[in-house]
């Protein structure tokens, strides 16, 4: 599904990723953990094609194609979805309108008929129940005046509607209280399938109590310094990141 080799990237005038390797198979859920500034969000940004990040080395293959050569919209249409850490507000644009445009862009790309307003609404309302969102969400501006928790739920709603092949969740748990976290985790879990891979970027292992990863990787200094299973996340919870950084420096 996804193969990252020797990835190097710069952002804000600094080298952030310094030779990162990662392989994600079909249906697998990988958690990327690490301290602040280790490059987690930069990795998510590189995968989605964020224009402010400059890739300076390495390669990324996605479903057999050179991901780095694709526009952000082409990546999205090929099934790559990024749940943003800080979803942007777009005043005046209806939430439901954006989502319908997005879904139809994907369907058009796949050669499927575009959904009309009624079909689309039926689909969305179904998914909204899952995310415990009421109808008023549909006609508000995209993320306009949403609370932090509402924004994150909206991201997962979009993911549920767009049904990506690879979902990258960038700190989707940050800023959520425990109830909202459960709703979001429940939404994410309902999307797990043998066909769908996920990369879950998180600072805390708290989310991983609800979204059980197949693999856990620790990112530090722009490289993956350790990989393991769920037990690694628990160890990090207990011991923090310092011991790993000391080990990798030694």
């Amino acid at each position: 599904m996804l193969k990252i080799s020797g990835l190097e990237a710069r952002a804000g005038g600094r080298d952030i990723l310094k030779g990162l390797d990662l392989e994600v198979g079909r249906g697998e859920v990988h958690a990327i953990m690490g301290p602040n500034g280790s490059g987690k969000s930069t990795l998510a940004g590189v995968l989605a094609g964020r224009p402010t990040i400059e890739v300076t080395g390495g390669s990324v293959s996605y479903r057999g194609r050179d991901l780095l050569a694709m526009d952000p919209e082409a990546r999205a249409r090929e099934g790559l979805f990024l749940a943003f850490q800080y979803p942007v507000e777009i005043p005046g644009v209806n939430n439901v309108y954006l989502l319908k445009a997005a879904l139809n862009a994907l369907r058009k790309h796949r050669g499927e008929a575009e959904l009309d307003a009624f079909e689309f609404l039926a689909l969305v309302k179904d998914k909204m129940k899952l995310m415990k969102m009421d109808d008023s969400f549909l006609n508000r501006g995209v993320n306009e005046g949403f609370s932090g928790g509402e924004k994150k739920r909206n991201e997962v709603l979009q993911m549920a509607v767009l049904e990506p092949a690879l979902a990258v969740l960038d700190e989707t748990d940050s800023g959520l209280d425990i109830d909202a976290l459960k709703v979001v985790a429940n939404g994410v879990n309902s999307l797990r399938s043998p066909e769908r891979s996920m990369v879950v970027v998180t600072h805390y292992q708290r989310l991983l109590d609800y979204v059980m990863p197949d693999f856990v990787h620790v990112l530090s200094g722009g490289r993956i310094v350790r990989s393991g299973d769920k037990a690694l996340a628990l160890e990090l919870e207990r011991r923090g990141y310092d011991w790993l950084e000391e080990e990798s420096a030694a």
Partner: protein
Amino acid sequence: MASGQQDVEALVGRKYRHGFVTDIESDTVPPGLDEAVIRHISAKKGEPQFLLDWRLKAYAHWLTMQEPRWAHVRFDPIDYQGISYYSAPRKKTDGPKSLDEVDPKLLETYEKLGIPLHERAILAGVAVDAVFDSVSVATTFKEKLASAGVVFCPFSEAVQKHPALVEQYLGSVVPYSDNYFATLNSAVFTDGSFVYVPKGVRCPLELSTYFRINAANTGQFERTLIVADEGSHVSYLEGCTAPMRDEHQLHAAVVELVALEGATIKYSTVQNWYPGDEQGRGGIYNFVTKRGDCRGDNSKISWTQVETGSAITWKYPSCILRGHNSVGEFYSVAVTNNYQQADTGTKMIHIGRNTRSTIVSKGISAGHGQNAYRGLVKVLPGAEGARNYTQCDSLLMSPDCGAHTFPYMEVGNPSAVVEHEATTSKISDEQLFYCRQRGISEEDAVNMIVNGFCKEVFRELPMEFAVEAQNLLAVSLEGAVG
């Protein structure tokens, strides 16, 4: 980021679609303006004496006036003696009595513009009074309107058939001495539209006029007068396109609205005249005076405008809230791209008690465009309980464009409440990236965001016009992508 900026600039560089010239023999007077030209226009139209006298008074007054220079726009001096003041498509006999008699080339022009006169009018239920170079050549749905008692006809026809109404109301909102361009218009106007809605009548159709400027070097001076008698209701749509042209063309129209007691007039404009090329060459000078008079109690006048065209737009559709409890509204979207300039806004003059006004202005600047909102809210001492709400939002799409806001308030009654809000924003790279990450192309994303910005204005437009306005905005701001 630099790349995002370039992309936005590429998107806004789309070519003007409606650039073509129809070859129709024109009956044009030589360039220049003097009393003889005015007498010629008046005689050509067989006007009554009162109208000729009015024109001549306006001309005499105009000679004493100076061209105003206070607007935030720049343009080369206009050679008023270089303009031809009359141009009419040549008539075969006494003028067309039905569409069959209309010059086929003219109809073809409308086809190119996407205005198939007969079909569109029937399908959309819209009566079209098509103004082509100063003379109205086709009018539809006359019978249906006539059975409701509504008069909707070319101004020159109204002068012949309803001279008393014309004499009573012409110049009663915009007097001949009002301002430089309105005074010039009063002296030389050639045609336009006239509407009279009788007492208690709700006009059964949306009234629509498509204006066009065609013959080279012909200034266009339209005169529109709409009178809504007591308790009546009318919605009027004005839409414009013009062929591509290399030299500047002056357009100085006057629109007067009169709403008597309990009457409502809704006036919607989509203006798409030739804006000039990417270097700012050519394009229309659109210097228009539009004013409505809420003359009776409980009357209402609502202006909605979408201004995407013209090299220079200079207009302030205004409301005089004379009647008690009368309501004035102004909803505006103005787009300036390349070297376009717009200085537009409104005046709300509160005279009657409990008068209310709402102003929502959306300015979009791209390229080197300059966009100014200029508005006056004036509350006279007798306007007890007057209310105004003003909202001015500017959207900047390039580093070289400008947005300016000039709000004026004169409040002469302590019970009045006047609110003003203003914002300036740009389409952020993060918004574009967010949309693209959802699979939406950059071009569609820009459209979506701009339309979202304009939503409060678009929803005031009649349905068919709202779609047209969104298309126009897309044409004005999209690049030649795809």
